[in-house]
């Protein structure tokens, strides 16, 4: 409960900043001429308040505003508390539209028939009245915002209504569809082979581009690639260093193009920092790729066999996708940790991500405790929206997992098929050699050649299946786990809120009793305790 001491002048500063930016935008909306522009600004304003795609953050934002304007206490949740907090930044829609490029498929269709999956973004209709009503409910239970603000909030309510229609609220959980498109020259596995699925930044720009430009003032274009895995060091202390190259025109970065060397634990460290900062306010932080002790040990030992090359390639592409997802989230992009990760040449070693370490064990214990807690918390789900969403996610999770396993078997079998085709090709060639009827011999050799080509095609198809389909599915399965984690967070904070409320009740009762018994000094003490307890309640409600 540090915010109490947390200077009220800090709060004042942020309040005025917030108010001024709000006013400026309202002014823009009104004064800015045509309806289109007005709508735009309204939407961008709504965005500011809508922030991330996670629904209840609206609520938190709303309550935060209420808080800020109301009793002047500022929740200490916002990391950059000194300046106008995060919610002035553009919200993330995540409703990007990506399509697999048709040119690639046309070129491949003649040869290999890769199954190109084209998917579409989702626009589910969020329940727009919901946030507004929650909002109202919270306001009524708060300590009474100044009456002047209510009209502002009503406006915001309407803005919400409008904004929610424009913005797809829950898109990150849905399939933000990446167009992973292998570059036409897919080479079969060699230690240096790179299948590079790339998100086409052009595609992303197409949607919501104008809105983002309005909000940020520069074009949202950032292109990250992870490449050149190289082994550094020897023996068990060896690790793979990946080159992270960023090309961007965003103003927050110092240069247009820069690259740094990172290792896997750096990525994990970044993820844990982001998770600790953002998870409990309800952002969905993209999950990092998993540690794999077996795979890494093989690489460390230095075996140059194709399976370790594949492992490195898998990891490289997973890291690339992870970074791309992270920077797509505008709030995360603005985070100094992310920027430091992308820019600075030296990064403090994230030791706590090591598998066998004190921190790792602590993490495991925490996870177990969380699991137990989850079972004991019986949340009174007052929000049907959440219930429905949770159910949907459960289903989606199941389906995706099933699909993922089926696709994995397919990839495995196809690889087997390609191996068998290669063996048969050799055998047919030998048969053709030993055949003494020359025409038949020729025919058999040609059959052998054709089978070899077929083998190559099968290999390519297997790779395409894997990188386009299977990895995507596994990414989404992990994302859904992250989503579930956020749901759980919500439950936890609700629980805390309940507890805090209960404590507040008790203190109030104690105070009443003391008052009755006319013990003035004890009364004072009780009053202090109450004052301590009540902000606790409000914090928890905010978190929720």
């Amino acid at each position, binding site marked *: 409960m540090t915010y109490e001491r947390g200077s009220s002048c800090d709060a004042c500063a942020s309040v005025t900043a917030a108010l001024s930016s709000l006013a400026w935008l309202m002014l823009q909306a009104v004064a800015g001429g045509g309806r289109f522009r007005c709508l735009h600004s309204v939407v961008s304003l709504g965005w500011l308040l809508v922030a991330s795609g996670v629904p209840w953050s609206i609520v938190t934002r709303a309550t935060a505003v209420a808080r800020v304007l109301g009793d002047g206490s500022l929740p200490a949740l916002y990391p950059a508390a000194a300046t106008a907090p995060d919610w002035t930044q553009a919200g993330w829609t995540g409703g990007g539209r990506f*399509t697999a490029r*048709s040119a690639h*498929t046309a070129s491949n*269709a*003649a040869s290999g*028939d890769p*199954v*190109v*999956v*084209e*998917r*579409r*973004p*989702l*626009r*589910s209709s969020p329940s727009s009245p919901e946030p507004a009503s929650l909002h109202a409910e919270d306001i009524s239970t708060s300590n009474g915002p100044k009456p002047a603000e209510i009209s502002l909030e009503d406006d915001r309510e309407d803005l919400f209504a409008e904004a929610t229609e424009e913005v797809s609220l829950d898109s990150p959980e*849905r*399939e933000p*569809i990446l167009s992973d498109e292998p570059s036409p020259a897919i080479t079969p596995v060699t230690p240096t082979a790179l299948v590079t699925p790339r998100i086409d930044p052009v595609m992303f720009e197409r949607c919501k581009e104008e809105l983002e430009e309005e909000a940020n003032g520069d074009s949202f274009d950032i292109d990250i690639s992870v490449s050149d895995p190289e082994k550094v060091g020897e023996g068990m202390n060896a690790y793979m260093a990946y080159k992270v190259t960023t090309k961007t025109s965003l103003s927050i970065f110092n240069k247009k193009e820069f690259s740094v060397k990172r290792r896997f634990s750096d990525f994990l460290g970044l993820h844990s920092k982001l998770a600790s900062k953002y998870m409990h306010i309800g952002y969905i932080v993209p999950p990092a790729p998993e540690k794999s002790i077996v795979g890494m040990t093989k690489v460390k030992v230095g075996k140059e066999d194709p399976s370790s090359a594949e492992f490195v390639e898998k990891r490289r592409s997973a890291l690339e996708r992870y970074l791309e997802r992270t920077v797509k989230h505008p709030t995360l992009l603005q985070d100094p940790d992310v920027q430091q990760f992308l820019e600075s040449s030296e990064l403090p070693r994230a030791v706590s991500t090591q598998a066998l370490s004190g921190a790792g064990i602590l993490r495991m214990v925490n996870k177990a405790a969380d699991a137990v807690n989850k079972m004991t918390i019986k949340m009174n789900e007052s929000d049907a929206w959440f219930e429905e969403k949770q159910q*949907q996610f459960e*289903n*989606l999770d199941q*389906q*995706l997992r*099933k*699909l993922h396993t*089926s*696709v994995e*078997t*397919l990839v495995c*079998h*196809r690889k*087997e*098929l390609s191996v*068998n*085709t290669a*063996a*048969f090709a050799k*055998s*047919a060639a*030998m*048969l053709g050699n*030993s*055949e*003494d*009827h*020359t*025409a*038949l011999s*020729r*025919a*058999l050799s040609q*059959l052998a050649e054709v089978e070899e080509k077929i083998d190559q095609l099968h290999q390519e198809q297997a790779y395409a299946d894997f990188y386009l389909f299977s990895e995507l599915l596994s990414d989404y399965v992990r994302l859904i786990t992250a989503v579930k984690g956020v749901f759980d967070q919500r439950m936890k904070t609700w629980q805390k809120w309940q507890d805090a409320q209960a404590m507040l009740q008790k203190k109030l009762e104690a105070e009443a009793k003391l008052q009755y018994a006319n013990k003035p000094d004890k009364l004072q003490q009780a009053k202090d305790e109450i004052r301590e307890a009540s902000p606790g309640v409000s914090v928890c409600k905010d978190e929720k």
Partner: protein
Amino acid sequence: MDDSQDLFVGEDGRPRSVTVDLYNDSSLQVEISDAVSERDKVKFTVHTKTNLAHFKKPEFSVVRQHEEFIWLHDTYLENEDYAGIIIPPAPPRPDFEASREKLQKLGEGDGSMTREEFAKMKQELEAEYLAIFKKTVAMHEVFLQRLAMHPILRRDHNFYVFLEYDQDLSVRGKNKKEIFGGFLKNIVKSADEALITSMSGLKEVDDFFDHERTFLLEYHTRVKDSSLKADRLTRSHKNVAEDYIPISSALNVLGTQESSAISRSFIKLAELFEKLRKVEGRVASDEDLKLSDLLRYYMRDSQAAKDLLYRRARSLADYENANKVLDKARMKNKDVKQAENHQLVCCQRFEKLSDSAKQELIDFKVRRVAAFRKNLIELTELELKHAKASLLLLRNCLVSLKMDH
């Protein structure tokens, strides 16, 4: 036969391919008109149409089991008169074990499968079972037809009995002793073969046979290898095709559960996978029929040819021995007449064998080339057809998915 001619340009001369076209002579036509699969055995109905005087009726049928085919084959093998002929290889035992196991596993199986998935997999397995069944019928039929076609082999008394005798031939399957005996015999035979072929005294006078021997030995091993690899290839192809089933159904579920823009794409994709599966399945089974079966048959046939060569070599060895005995007898001047007769017999035998073997081997080559030609042409044509079909499917799906966008 012009070797240098392109294989796929028309060839003159009577092609005698694996699937026998009955050439000119319709005096004895044999086919398996029906087959019934009971739990452990398969009963074949052998139908004969003939105008040979020897048979009682011009048209008749009998029911035979696999063991009776094997018996017939063995009688041919044991008959000395046929030593100079390539005996058509015996049909393989009908083996439904694998697919029966799979059906069983499916039945017990997995609660995780939706009803449609289950139905589809069951359909696939049943189709597989049926395919194996058809294949085994075909193998038996080919065996009989080759026997009927061969001018010498068709006159065998046992063959007539096989075709005509109404009742059960009461041929019991080999009991353990006989199987073991057969096993031993094989070992002896291969040892003998090795001895004969490496015997320094035995000079192969005939270039033709020399060449044939080296060729056949090499060919046989290579065909065996190819046949194995082709089998594996077909099996993994089938696995891939079968994998499409759960993917298709999972996509279907995803599509129907969600009501959003993407669900239509999911359903389209599910349909695509379903259709692709059928095409892939057909590709796999065509590969199986045309390629694997061909290779397997010629593996067995080349083994039979090798056996012929062995018999010839054996008789040559006998002939040489007889010569030696004769020389010895002449030297000792004892039993000369006997030795001379024996030598004469051996010589005649050897000559006869050589002649017929020569003819047989030439026929074998012709047959083999024709069979390969036919099957390879059919295989490539079918694969082209299927590839075009799947290309069309994929293109259509792509277009329709794009239209949704």
